[in-house]
């Protein structure tokens, strides 16, 4: 499952999608909106995606990750639009025979997503807003 969604992410559905009877481990990554950045109080975030391309890139990352770590399952969902503090912006679930592969693969998947999937976030503060662009943001 690869998806860009506009509403809340159903974490359980993502985990369910990645599950397999052959798996002994499921590792998840949940990216959530925090209340501060760059020394300022964040009120909310806004995510914008180039949706058609983002889904293609996510599918490519999924294929690569599954192959490299011989995974049993993998699902990845990113949310767009306005997100409040504590909301999930991205959720990844990975299942594999053993935990080592699942941990490594999950790290690789989120790092790859952050560098190549065309999605941008705008941070809103009490006194303004700014697009965060570039790796490491």
């Amino acid at each position, binding site marked *: 499952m690869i998806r860009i969604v506009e509403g809340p992410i159903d974490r359980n559905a993502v985990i369910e999608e990645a599950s397999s009877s052959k798996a002994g481990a499921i590792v998840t990554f949940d990216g959530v909106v925090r209340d501060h950045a760059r020394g300022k109080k964040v009120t909310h975030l806004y995510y914008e995606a*180039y949706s058609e*391309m*983002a889904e293609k890139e996510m599918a490519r990352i999924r294929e690569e990750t599954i192959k490299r770590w011989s995974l049993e399952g993998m699902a990845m969902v990113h949310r767009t639009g306005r997100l409040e503090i504590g909301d999930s*912006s991205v959720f990844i679930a990975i299942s594999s025979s053993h935990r080592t592969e699942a941990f490594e693969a999950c790290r690789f998947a989120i790092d790859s997503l952050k560098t190549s999937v065309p999605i941008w976030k705008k941070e809103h503060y009490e006194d303004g807003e700014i*697009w965060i662009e*570039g790796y490491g*943001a």
Partner: protein
Amino acid sequence: MVKVVLFASLKDLVGRSEVELDLAEEGTTVRDVFNTLGKQCPELKRYESILLIAVNQEYTEWEQTVTSGDEIAFFPPVSGGGS
């Protein structure tokens, strides 16, 4: 005719998310398209060195040639995901 799509700060700069441009001649490259857009919005030029480009939703290079009907995207480095 090609369709140029813009995102994030670039969209704000140009004030539009889509721009349609006529193709001047055979062999037009992504860079030519960007330069044409730059004439309409000179401030775009200072983004040139950091921009990522895609044609028909695939990452590509500045010298790739484009043909009528292509969708060309210019965008800043991405910042999706969580921390």
